[in-house]
């Protein structure tokens, strides 16, 4: 995937660019707002990682607004040291698809960027999700594995749905907390782990191959092959 990183801090930019390249992406980098806007508007990218505060007179929000006013739907992950609720809302309102505050773990950034690029592709009405022998019917709200019905609580159903929608991708605990529970704070205890482990009891334990895997230092991934 082609990803544009607009970030002025040399260390952060180098770290992000290296990491994304290691993960198999093609990465371009701009270290000021002017170049960033020019590249985002003139070249084709699958996603943009955008810092908010940039030198060169054009900040991240300005770039976003300009892109969106040109009907560009390119997924944008805002990266910012501004962590207030209001700042977050401002970034998303300007057209950001996701908001990550600094400092961040690279695993979190990678998971979110990959989730964004995937989101663009699986657009359209999906009524059924399937990974290997695991089936989730969004209409009848039924889950079956190897033809066997699995009873899930409503929240477990949404958790599994989220994992299946991002099958093959790393999903972080924060992403689950935001995507499944819609909570934007950090619960001190690792509540997510407990919920995932409960889901595993129902979805994986009775079967031969586990589908929900723990990715060390990152989160979880749902797929057939072990991580």
């Amino acid at each position: 995937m082609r990803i544009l990183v607009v970030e002025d801090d040399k260390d952060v930019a180098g770290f992000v660019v290296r990491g994304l390249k290691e993960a198999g992406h093609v990465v371009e980098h701009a270290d000021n707002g002017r170049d960033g806007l020019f590249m985002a508007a003139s070249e084709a990218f699958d996603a943009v990682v955008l810092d908010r505060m940039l030198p060169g007179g054009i900040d991240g929000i300005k770039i976003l607004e300009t892109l969106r006013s040109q009907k560009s739907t390119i997924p944008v992950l805002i990266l910012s040291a501004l962590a207030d609720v209001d700042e977050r809302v401002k970034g998303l309102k300007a057209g950001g698809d996701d908001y990550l505050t600094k400092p961040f773990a690279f695993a979190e950034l990678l998971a979110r960027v990959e989730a964004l690029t995937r989101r663009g592709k699986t657009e359209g009405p999906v009524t059924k999700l399937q990974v290997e022998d695991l089936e989730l019917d969004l209409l009848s709200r039924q889950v079956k594995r190897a033809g066997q019905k699995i009873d899930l609580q409503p929240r477990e159903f949404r958790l599994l749905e989220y994992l299946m929608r991002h099958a093959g991708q790393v999903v972080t605990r924060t992403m689950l907390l935001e995507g499944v529970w819609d909570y934007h704070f950090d619960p001190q205890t690792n509540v997510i782990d407990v919920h995932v482990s409960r889901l595993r009891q129902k979805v994986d334990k009775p079967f031969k191959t586990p589908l929900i895997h723990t990715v060390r230092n990152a989160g979880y991934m749902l797929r057939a092959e072990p991580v």
Partner: protein
Amino acid sequence: MIDTKLLRSAGVRFAAIYAVLLTLSALALTSFIWWSTAGLLDRETEAEIHADAQGLSDRWTQAGLPGLVLTIEDRLAQNIDGDAVYLLVDETGRRLAGNLINWPPKVDQAGPFFELPVQRAGMRTLTRVRYYDIPPDLRLLIGRDVHVRALLRAMVTDALLWSLLIVSVTATSGAVLVRNLFKRSLANVSATATAIAAGDLSQRVRLSGRGDELDQLAEVINEMLDRIGRLMEGVRQVSNAIAHDLRTPITRARTRLEDAASHARTPEDLHAAIERAIADLDHIVGIFQALLRIAEIEAGSRRASFVRLDVAPLLADIAELYEAVAEERGVTLTLDVSGPLPVHGDGAMLQQAVANLLDNAVKFSPAQGTVGLRARSDRDSVRIEVSDQGPGIPPADRERATERFFRGETARSTPGSGLGLALVAAVAQLHGGSLRLEDAAPGLRAVLSLPTVGSTDA
């Protein structure tokens, strides 16, 4: 220079306004009194003369000159007070009837009233007269002796002038008094403000106890000072926290990195040390975020996003999140919420507050213990209670438990930043409610009270 400075003084301005207003109202009052006493006498006299003239005019039309002369004589004879004045003359100025000897030369025009001294019955006296033309060639003068009335009028006028003078004097001294009063009432506020500006934040404006506007102002100022004091205390606490509580994890991370840099033998050791240092730094970032979040809440700007909401489903949600954690630790989480629980607030913030309470409760609960989340609403408040069967907080520590970084003796060995309850308290305060810690015997009961909103207001 001194003049403009004096004019700029609010006290002088108020005093001047007082003096001018008092003088103006005194002037209005005396004018009215003069008009209704001395003026009334004049108007009465004029009305009498007018009525007299009407009567004589009627006689003239009915009975001609002889009738008129007879009537004048009659009226003079019947006038017991002796204050009536008549004079009827022909074209040559010869007297036909009346009690004046000759026509006063000053009266040369029919219509207006004249006031003139006349010699009558051997006495100089003052009369008010009017001259009527009787066609073809007669002239009639009708008047009243106003000597006594003139005296009375002079007396009233004198009295009023004197009273005006007295009013001016009292107005001036009153103005000075007002100015001094004004100065003295503000001196108290001014002295307090000066002391605070000089750095003594403990000073408060003294209340007179009268409950008047100045007392109300003083109360508002004192409340403001209390709030500033609390904010200053918060800033002090945070700086202390940064000095002490953040130094520890930063020292640990630094030590680990330096130790690894100089002593690690294998790349694996180095990796492990770096990863632990990253975890330490993440912990520090977490503390920073919590501190900033509390500061953001305490600043009160989030109040703008408040909406009317029902807390009951939010509580069910958050309980569901923690129920799994509790179960894993062998703790039972019971939910007892009877809704609706209407409040005016920020749902996400309230959930975070309750999450912190549940987090604490689950963390400190003994195995097989029970954590209860209970919520009720009555006429003026919504009470959200989280109780556990853990060690609780000794009464002496309860006050301080909501301070940033406070960690009780029993909590030292449990992981945590010491910011959880501080955040809950900040959320409660932002919503105009309170956080109370009680003894659940055994354990702790945290009671979050929020003002409820009636069904009528949105």
